[in-house]
């Protein structure tokens, strides 16, 4: 199993430097819990790791091979669970899941989908169209994607939002199992998710307090931030010394 590393990562959103000089390393069976206040860049770091967002400096690598040299290999290793559940209202839960499993290359996506729903404790929603699912059920369906389309590295952005206590316990068990098989997990959370032996990464340690980035050259500036919940914290951080 390979080792996933990031070195000297710097992320820019709009004209705001979110974090800078960030290093991490995850080995087989490892877990990395991202901690920090709202707006400290947990989601941004996960998006950088997934490849959705390009870091303006620094690099990600698998066993020392930079991700840009093998983007296809990177995509095959990663499963990303973001804030949005990607559930189509007119497709049933099983169809939604089978599509993503098939896209990831599963041999029998329909069977994978049913098995994954069963593992998440919601086999009864298989035939229910997405528009009738509750928020918690949609979330479980989204998490079921991790099992239906297996990948070595799970990137989880607040995976337990909308989940009840029992589901969180169930999910902790799935993470432990994934790690026992040599898988890796990076997650951000505001509730406690037990990840025994996992590392913690405090993102506020990498926050560049001070002026917004590069006001003089203005490169990449001007793009409005798409995450409105970041705005108040931005103001707070800029006011801080």
């Amino acid at each position: 199993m390979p080792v996933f590393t990031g070195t000297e990562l710097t992320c820019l959103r709009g004209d705001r430097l979110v974090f800078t000089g960030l290093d991490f390393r995850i080995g087989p069976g490892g877990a990395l819990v991202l901690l920090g206040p709202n707006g400290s860049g947990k989601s941004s770091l996960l998006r950088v790791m997934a490849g959705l967002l390009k870091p303006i400096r620094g690099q990600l690598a698998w066993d020392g091979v930079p991700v840009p040299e093998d983007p296809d290999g990177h995509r095959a290793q990663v499963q990303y669970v973001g804030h949005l559940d990607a559930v189509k209202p007119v497709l049933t839960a099983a169809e939604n899941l089978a599509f993503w499993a098939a896209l990831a290359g599963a041999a029998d996506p329909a069977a994978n989908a049913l098995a994954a729903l069963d593992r998440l404790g919601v086999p009864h929603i298989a035939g229910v169209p997405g528009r009738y699912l509750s928020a918690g059920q949609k979330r479980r369906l989204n998490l079921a994607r991790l099992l239906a389309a297996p990948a070595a590295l799970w990137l989880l952005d607040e995976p337990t939002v909308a989940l009840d206590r029992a589901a969180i316990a169930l999910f902790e068990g799935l993470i432990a199992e994934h790690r026992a098989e040599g898988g890796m997990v990076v997650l951000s959370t505001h509730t406690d998710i037990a990840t025994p032996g996992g590392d913690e990464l405090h993102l506020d340690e990498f926050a560049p307090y001070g002026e917004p980035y590069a006001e003089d050259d203005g490169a990449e500036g001007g793009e409005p931030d798409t995450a409105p919940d970041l705005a108040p914290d931005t103001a707070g951080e800029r006011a801080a010394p």
Partner: protein
Amino acid sequence: MSRFLRLVGRDLRLALRQGSDATIAVMFFVLCVVLFPFGVGPEPNILARIAAGVIWVAALLASLLSLERLFQTDYEDGSLELLSLSPLPLEAAVLAKTLAHWLVTGVPLIVAAPLLAVLLNMDAAGFGVLVLTLALGTPILSLIGGIGAALTLGARRGGVLLSLLILPLYIPVLIFGAGAIDAALNGLTPRPHLLLLACILAGALPLAPWAGAAALRQAVE
């Protein structure tokens, strides 16, 4: 390839279950053409003269109508992020979604066009060429429109912006599409026009998905 077909299949299934997109485009097309006899008067000669142009302009507008939603729902529910992270190259995903869009909105236009040509008193000599130009032209409309849909993703009032961005790019398709029919009606060969349309299609087929994918990567950042 199977992933590509999976995505086409999913989009077709979504369109058929929602139903609205496909029927709205073709209904708009029919209504738009039907308005002309009311506007310019029911004189057969005038209608026959403008038939080719009217049908083509209506086809442009009808295909534009549903383009806004080509990537919109996937963008809003997070599917687009997952698509861009999947092993299927984003260019192929754009092509698959464009193909599904054409099958759902373009093909019904091709089917409805000869009926509207009868309505406008077009000479029967032009029917074959009309269908042929639409068969070559509507995929171009979907392909070029896909670039615009990707570029305007996340913009407020994206639909209006999309029209302003894309309609000028449709002009060559309109010229050669309507030109081929006019040529056939006047006893000339429509071949040069058809070849030029085919040439645009051959160029748009690899370039449009590439440009669309680049725009989508910006949108999901």
